[in-house]
């Protein structure tokens, strides 16, 4: 039996039924999709890069995150890996925004 990784869900034990209910996307989810699209158009992140980065999320964290949260984590990891951003820059920006909202 081969090792089955967390994203490889076909036949996953106790996976339960697929939720096929339609749902609307939040603005941050649409923005995440748009950012990924732009990074793809600029040849910065490939589809295969994104898949690999999503599959690399630690399994417990992977289970906790929603679909687009996984995208965000993966996009940040890839931008850091490719030298466009540092985690510190991302954290600093998030702190600035949280301060603005108070």
């Amino acid at each position, binding site marked *: 039996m*081969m090792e*089955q*990784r967390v994203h*490889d869900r*076909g*036949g996953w034990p106790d996976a339960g039924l697929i939720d096929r209910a339609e749902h609307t996307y939040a603005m941050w989810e649409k923005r995440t999709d748009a950012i990924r699209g732009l990074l793809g158009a600029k040849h910065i992140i490939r589809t*295969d890069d994104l*898949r*690999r980065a999503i599959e690399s999320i630690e399994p417990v964290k992977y289970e906790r995150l929603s679909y687009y949260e996984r995208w965000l984590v993966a996009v940040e990891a890839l931008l850091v890996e490719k030298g466009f951003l540092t985690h510190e820059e991302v954290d600093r920006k998030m702190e600035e925004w949280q301060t603005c909202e108070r």
Partner: protein
Amino acid sequence: MAAKFQPGDRVRIRVGSPPGHFRTPAYVQGKTGVVEVLHGAFPNPESLAHGGDGLPKQFLYLVRFDQTSVWPHYLTTLQDKLLIDIYEHWLEPA
């Protein structure tokens, strides 16, 4: 470079879990199917996902399985098929 398989050929999916990105789900590994379509040659996603150039290109096939051969407890219509794209380096003759 010529494709190793043609439509109608019986193929077995290799079993493995290489450390990086790959597009062969666990549920078809070790299973035997039939080549339905030869799609052509494409850059290898296992290379593209890790900053590589995807070369040499890999032939990609649409492979057909009986659902009953993929899922041990498959209970509905016996004629149901699974169709899935698999790259050539994951295939061996069966």
